[in-house]
């Protein structure tokens, strides 16, 4: 039996027909289940849902309360996030604005499936049809009678008070969009018929987990229908939905969201470069730098189904006009579009960490930062914790006017002579200094303050001569695969894995390794696993300890 599975696995890999072959999977370790979660929608999820439901023409304005990055992910922080009064005020304002747009004369005929008997008075039947339709998507389950009655009653009262059916409809819709049933993705449980005394997520909660994991948005009609029919409790039905979702164009949206979170690209919202020191860097460059990395990731990992580790060495990317000016690459796209681009063999650019996005994001406004870069590589890409700096650092060596410290290596060498600092800087600096020939705006350079930059270094004992060499060392570093496994699992479940789940993570890593480190296989393994949906009994919810928080500020 095992031989047959192994053989079918090899055939699949050899022919390249599909990389998602459940036949070569080994049984997963048993899972005990964690507390159900109640996750606050992220800004991107909120925006995606509104676009999916009402179309991209509906604008979403307003700000969202910040989430706390936990286990390297804001998504995990969302599991513990609360709604502040100011935050709810923003949600209320956004909801009213969206609702007004939905019922506007320009949109109502398309977005509201019925016409009222009279525009100047309520129409419960039409309101009921509308709310049942949109509520199923907003709340991620068919509305209960109570859930329908509430907005219909609001719409009727508001329609009477305001003398307009559509104003009434907008009021009821705005109410639904400030409801916790919309703003939080709440795990609903039910008794598990196959395990008496135990509970399981209901089908709609499973659908929501899958959808936010793979698509970063609300479940579509097919997924909700599968949940309604109980198909997500069945392996065959679940696999069918997972395969469908992995084949959907929405997977790109989902994976963009994941890598945006994992790489802390939300910090692009506050990136700032000094316009005198870096005159080429602009808001357009920042936006395109982020987009370039996401395009590189999507193309390699989703479109080409390539090896995840090649992300650190690939010379293939995409180029826009604004980026071309920094990379010094001609881009013949006057329309502002993108072109595929491959850096030549031997170029100083290869892999994610040599792109402008990474170099600029982990730098200061007016200079690079080997420490920030080294820390980002350790924490975001290798899942290794760098301790916080001690509070009582002596900077006198930095301040010595007789030691001009022209380069970052000079400065950090002085710093690392302090025993309290040396331990951590040994972890960050040898890799961060390798990127020093890329300045704080992502431009190549060979000198700093007139002194030649030495970009050599080592990563966990593997020596290299420059940033491209660092990328190769990253590709082969044994911490890379388990890190992406940890992050994907954490992102999918919305929580930090328990220590007792290490065998499970090992299992996923083995499957990932067997599949030549193809991301879709990892996604499939986790999405179709019992572990993604395993929950403890409701009583355990109160006892569940909060997940460990990152020590970042």
């Amino acid at each position, binding site marked *: 039996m095992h031989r047959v599975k192994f053989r079918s696995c090899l055939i699949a890999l050899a022919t390249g027909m599909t990389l998602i072959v459940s036949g070569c999977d080994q049984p997963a370790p048993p899972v005990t289940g964690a507390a159900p979660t109640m996750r606050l929608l992220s800004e991107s999820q909120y925006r995606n849902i509104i676009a999916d439901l009402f179309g991209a023409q509906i604008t979403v304005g307003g700000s969202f309360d910040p989430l*706390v990055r936990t286990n390297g992910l804001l998504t995990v922080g969302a599991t513990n996030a609360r709604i502040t009064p100011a935050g709810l005020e923003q949600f209320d304002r956004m909801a009213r604005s969206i609702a007004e747009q939905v019922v506007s004369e320009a949109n109502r005929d398309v977005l509201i499936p019925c016409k009222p008997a009279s525009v100047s008075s309520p129409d419960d039947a039409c309101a009921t049809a509308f709310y049942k339709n949109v509520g199923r998507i907003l709340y991620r389950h068919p509305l209960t009678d109570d859930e329908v009655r509430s907005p219909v009653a609001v719409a009727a009262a508001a329609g009477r008070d305001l003398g307009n059916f559509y104003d009434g409809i907008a009021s009821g819709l705005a109410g639904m969009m400030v409801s916790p049933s919309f703003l939080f993705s709440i795990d609903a449980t039910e008794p598990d018929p196959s395990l008496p005394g135990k509970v399981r997520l209901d089908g709609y909660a499973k659908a929501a987990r899958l959808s936010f994991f793979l698509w970063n948005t609300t479940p579509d009609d097919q997924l909700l229908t599968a949940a309604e029919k109980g198909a997500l409790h069945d392996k065959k039905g679940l696999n069918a939905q997972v395969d469908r979702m992995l084949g959907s164009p929405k997977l790109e949206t989902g994976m963009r969201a994941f890598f945006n979170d994992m790489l802390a690209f939300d910090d692009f919202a506050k990136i700032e470069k000094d316009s005198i020191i870096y005159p080429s860097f602009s808001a357009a460059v920042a936006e395109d730098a982020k987009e370039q990395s996401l395009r590189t990731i999507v193309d390699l990992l989703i479109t080409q189904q390539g090896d995840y580790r090649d992300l650190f060495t690939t010379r293939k990317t995409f180029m826009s006009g604004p980026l071309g000016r920094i990379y010094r690459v001609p881009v013949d796209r006057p329309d502002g579009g993108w072109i595929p681009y491959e850096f030549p063999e031997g170029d100083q650019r290869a892999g994610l960490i040599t792109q402008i996005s990474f170099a600029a994001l982990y730098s200061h406004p007016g200079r690079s930062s080997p420490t920030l870069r080294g820390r980002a590589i350790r924490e975001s890409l290798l899942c290794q914790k760098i301790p916080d700096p001690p509070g009582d650092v002596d900077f006198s060596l930095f*301040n010595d006017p007789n030691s001009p410290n022209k380069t970052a290596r000079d400065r950090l060498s002085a710093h690392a002579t302090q025993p309290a600092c040396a331990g951590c800087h040994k972890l960050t600096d040898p890799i961060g200094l390798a990127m020093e020939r890329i300045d704080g705006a992502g431009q190549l350079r060979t000198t700093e303050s007139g002194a030649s930059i030495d970009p050599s270094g080592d990563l966990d004992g593997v020596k290299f001569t420059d940033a491209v060499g660092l990328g190769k060392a990253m590709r082969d570093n044994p911490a890379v695969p388990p890190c992406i496994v940890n992050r994907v699992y954490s992102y999918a479940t919305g929580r930090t894995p328990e220590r007792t789940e290490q065998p499970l993570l090992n299992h996923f890593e083995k499957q990932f390794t067997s599949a030549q480190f193809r991301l879709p296989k990892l996604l499939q393994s986790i999405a179709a696993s019992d572990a993604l949906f395993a929950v403890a009994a409701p009583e355990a919810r109160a006892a569940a300890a909060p997940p460990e928080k990152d020590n970042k*500020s």
Partner: protein
Amino acid sequence: MTVLIPRKANRREMLKGTLGGAAVGVALPFLDCFLTDNGTALAATGAPLPVRFGTWYWGLGHTPGHAITPKTQTSAGIDFLEETKALKPWEKYINFYGGFNMPLDGRSNYTHFTGWVASRTGSAPSGNNDIPAPTLDLLIADSIAGNTRFQTLDMTSVGIPRENYSARSTNSRAAAEASPEKLYARIFGEEFMDPNKAEFAPDPRVMVRKSVLSAVGEQSKALNAKLGASDRARLDEYFTSIRQIENQLDLQMQKPEPNLACAIPLPIKRDGDEQNMPQGLEVDTVVANHQMMTKILAMAVACNQTKVFNMVFSDNFSHMRRPGQTYTHHLLTHEETPDKVLGYQPVAFSFNCRTMDSFASFIEAFANIREGDGNLLDNTLIFAATETNYARVHSIDGVPIFTAGRAGGRIKTGMHVVGNGDPITRVGLTAMQIMGLPIDKWGTKSLQTSKTITDVLA
């Protein structure tokens, strides 16, 4: 480039009563006859003028030896040195608190984080995202913020919404308003009700909004049965937020009390594309944003839109910078070579001076608004603190704190208070007691204190 002109309607304008050229009826101005003889209370209701509380935050502390001359005993008079000289004209409104310590009971000093968390929550954090207790502004808001539109107004002049040092817990931290334009729109936009307009008609849309929220709150209670204890607590916080918006809407359905101090500022107009407004960390931009936000805030307070506010001038790592310089304020504190003659880091010092200049302008904005027989600052208590004493070495003992304002006459001012190594929580405890909170101790572990600073109680 920047135009922010407070439109203080005179009596002639008010009586003429025009808005955008259209007659809207005769507005009667708030006259002194609305006040009691001593000008400290409203004659109609006998209610005292409200006392407000706010925080003002700056990053990276002071330059030791060049900010405030230390004292050995608490006494009247503050010796402002070069870094703080802009505060000298406001000495009669200010107290300085120096020499208070921050015992951590073995916990780490998470650089640029522990300091503000401990002084505002009374507890030392266990990690550098950990906010172990509500900040004092929220405790005060829970007590006094009724009858205003906003429980608190949080804003930051560094353009980054997450830089807000007011939080109920690690995971309950609102985004600060980071744009003066958005702050203006939120306060003085279409939902603002001019207290000095004679005419008042409740907006039926406001009543509808309230009924919508009431229905949502009622219908959502059923969720409680599906949740564990920790998530029920989170849902409770949501319901609290719903109630606060309902309270705001209740207020919008009532005619506000006339208020002479309230003069609606004109909208902000800046050159250039609104989408590309400078919101950067260049120090001139930060100062300009701060000035605009301060004027809006002070008038919002005078117009009774909030009784509690939080202004962040610079972030805890102070990433402020000068154009063309590779070093930010924070990097300078660590890496700038001290001048041998001056004895300090001159460029870092210049950032500190700009910071204190801005604090002085913040105080001035409140002092410039007449209220009763005094000014808004007479009826406000501003708690101004930072996260470190000397940023170069991240020291957290002796972190400087100022209070500004007379809190309705409840606090003596012009004092230099000496902590003698006592926990810094004594300042927060005293501030909360002045604001009327019935508490006799505050803080945890070695930061817990029950010692009010009686020297400043009026």
